[in-house]
């Protein structure tokens, strides 16, 4: 009799542990698959349109061309408005950035340790713009598996201004649909909405709309003319190229 109880208990324990690890595994698998969808292209070029919308609904538009190689090299060249045309930002690994201001005709290296600051008047922080895989930065927990999306709760593994990010991931194609950012008081402070379309073999974030609830301010990042795997090399991401 005793043995039966013991084995029953053991079975339950094993089962529970199994569910737990299955959950953990599932969550990290889902997040890894999302990372794959977002970061698998070798390189990308395209046009970027940044629409800033203030609380009165007034819009301000900036345009830039964008080149990216892997996860950690990126070149932004602003083309509009006229006053900002030619301003270029080169991001390299290890938080190294170079800025080129054509009016001054010279570049400066910018070291930014303040990653919670917003990038160039948008609602994206430097942290949000970083294209490091999410699975490297966050510990996921599956909190809901609905009919169309998985809902994961991401807890930062490193220093962050966020206490958590709640992300919904498309069940069939594994791209993110929404991300809600929470501050340390567990208040939702920002929210991103993604629209993905298929470009060649890859899923492309055609539009990301980021809303800052505190400032009542919105930013839309829209991509167009996207090309993947055109064979960009490290030479395309040098200070010399920046100045051109």
């Amino acid at each position: 009799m005793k043995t039966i109880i013991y084995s029953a208990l053991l079975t339950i324990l094993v089962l529970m542990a199994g569910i737990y690890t299955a959950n953990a595994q599932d969550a990290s698998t889902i997040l890894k698959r999302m990372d794959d969808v977002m970061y698998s292209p070798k390189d990308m070029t395209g046009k970027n349109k940044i629409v800033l919308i203030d609380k009165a609904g007034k819009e301000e538009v900036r345009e830039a061309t964008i080149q990216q190689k892997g996860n950690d090299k990126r070149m932004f060249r602003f083309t509009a408005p006229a006053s900002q045309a030619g301003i270029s930002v080169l991001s390299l690994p290890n938080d190294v950035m170079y800025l080129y201001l054509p009016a001054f005709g010279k570049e400066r290296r910018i070291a930014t340790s303040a990653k919670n600051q917003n990038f160039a008047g948008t609602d994206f922080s430097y942290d949000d713009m970083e294209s490091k895989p999410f699975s490297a930065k966050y510990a996921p927990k599956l909190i809901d598996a609905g009919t169309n999306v998985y809902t994961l709760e991401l807890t930062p593994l490193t220093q962050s201004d966020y206490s958590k990010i709640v992300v919904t991931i498309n069940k069939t194609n594994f791209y993110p649909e929404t991300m809600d950012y929470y501050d340390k008081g567990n208040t939702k402070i920002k929210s991103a909405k993604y629209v993905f379309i298929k470009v060649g073999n890859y899923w492309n974030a055609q539009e990301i709309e980021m809303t800052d609830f505190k400032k009542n301010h919105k930013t839309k990042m829209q991509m167009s003319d996207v090309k993947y795997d055109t064979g960009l090399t490290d030479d395309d991401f040098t200070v010399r190229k920046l100045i051109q």
Partner: protein
Amino acid sequence: MEQFTRKILKNRWIIIASVIVLTLFFGYQTRFISINSDIVSSLPDDDPAALLFKNIGNQFGGNEMGMIVLESDNVFKNDLLKHVKQITDSLKITHGVSTVTSLTNILDIKSTEEGIEIGKLVDEYNLPNSQSQLDSLKSYVFSKEMYKGAIVSEDGTATVIMFTLLPDADKQAVAKEIKEKTEALNLPEIIYFGGLPFMVNDVSDLIISDIVWLLPIVFIVIALILYISFKSLRGVIMPLLTAGIAVIWTVGIMVTAGHELTIILNIVPIILLAVGSAYTIHVINSFNVSKTTDINQTIIKALGYVIIPVVLAAVTTAIGFVSFVLGAYLTMIRDFGIFTAIGVMVSLILAIFFVPALTSVFSKNDNKKTADLTEKKTILSHVILQPLSNLLFKHPKYIFSIWGILMVISIVGMFLIKTSTNMADYFKKDNPTRISEDLMQKKFGGSFPVFVVFDGDVQSPEVLKTMIKTEQFMKQDPNISITQSVADLIEQMNDAMLEGKKIPDDRTKIEQLWFLLDGQDIMPQLVSEDLDRGIIQSKFASVENKEIEAFTKKMQQFIEENSNENCKIELTGMPSVYVRLNDSLIKSQFSSLLIALVLVVLIVGMIFRSISKGIYATIPIIATILVLFGFMGFTGIPLDIATVLVGSIALGIGIDYSIHFISGFNSHLKENGDAEKAIEKTLLSSGKAIIINVTSVAAGFLVLLFSQLVPLQNFGLLVAISMFGSGLGSLTLLPVILILANRKRKIIAN
């Protein structure tokens, strides 16, 4: 008059029912009362300087800046930095807080050999803890003008955490929450809370505790005095009942009209208790004196006697209050004038309609006692009034001269009167808020916001250069230590681009430097969204009127010389507003006094059908007001938003005593035609009523001495003094003048 009273008696149930219904209605309304102790919101919208200040505050969020200071022997210690971070983090997630700036999260732009370093002054996730790290932080902080004396005090013993509030935040509620949360951390450092949000919150708390504590005390004090004077329950209950109802109606009307309780409006109930009860006292007193076997007959007779003097007393008092509507600068003082006048009129209406109706209903069978109130030989008349009368007749010239000397001394004192508009002065010296403000002033250049507004294209080199020039000019004033503007940031960025710490001449360069600043938390505090307005934010360290005036004058001149079409400059901020407030205090004091005086002379003259009697009646009160100002001058009690009210209130209430005296004198003069006999008789009869009234009103106001707000303490003291003064004036100066005038030329009855 008889007709009128009969109508009241006929409709007594309707009157009682309507009073009950209205009281219930207004009583219900008082539930919705809110408190607004923010002096800024009371600045009038029709004054351009005040309007600009309000607008700038709303647009750039500077009015709502709050500060928390941590004091210790040395700021540069690891555990202190931890505590700063704790508070910073807690502020960041507090609802209603827009931005937080502290030692642990302040942005630092460094220009290095290699490039620009945009980062934090300290790494909040890895606070310095070795002595060498702390020492180098200390020397870096003291090497930069934007930190020294701004975020860390110059002696290195205190650091400030600044926060701004969202425009739609409930300032008071957020300040309260922050205070509670910070105190709950139980940190070992001494913590101070400063800035308008905290001050406003503290004033509100004091207003509430004042009302909760003082109103019942006033109630009890007046009840005691009434009992001693009337020795009957009715004599206590009726006046307090009507005064209580008048308070409920007035507050109800205030709330219904959409007004909030302010630092001065909260004394309205106390004034109404003290003043409003007087009308009922007169009416009841008259019932007692004219007692007949039938209560209705008594009421008819009594009301006939008393209605004119009571109406006159109420109207003159109301005029004293209404005079603020025309003369005052702050909207809260205008509101005070309107609502107290309304309250006085409500008290009058209740005394004339409600009191007779109620007496008629409840005293039907109360005819047992016969009129027993023929002049009793009381201590009052025996020990005080009779000897006084003898003295006056014996030495009228001496008495007159004593008043004359008092006047001369007072006029000298008047020139010593100071004004005070500083909100910190509201608090007693040992109040934590006051201590915090003093500390802010000493260690962080004050908490007094100063703004210089530039209307023009803020990306143009010309405007930015004018900003820099203005900042340099401002800093020459010893009371200005820190200034901040977008021009400073552009200079820093230009320096980081290796082109020197100056504004570039090329507009394109400015626009490109702007690209880096866009989206930084500080930008909305410095420039408008449309880039057509920029401001210099600064703080003024002194609260001395002289220094404030010198600064604003100097700035006005500078602005005139440098303002032009492309760059319109304006100065605003607390110092500018305080200068206006100060001017207005003195101006409104004189204009409201003058208005009240003229109206009172006219009305009293009209009732007595003699302008000279109108003037006689005002002499004691004018003398009292002079003594009052002299007293303020010699004791150093400043003219502030509450004490500015005293003169007109003293006039409105104090005139009643003279009216009583002169109307008594008139009727006695008619009876026997001899002026000196009439004066003596008046002294003995009206003298008693005047002394009782002075005592009860003054006692009511003296309760304000226990108020926790300094202006209200002073206000209570000064009103009490002017009550004694005007009472004494109508019992000594007025009879002496009548005696002397009569000796020159016989006064005859008209």
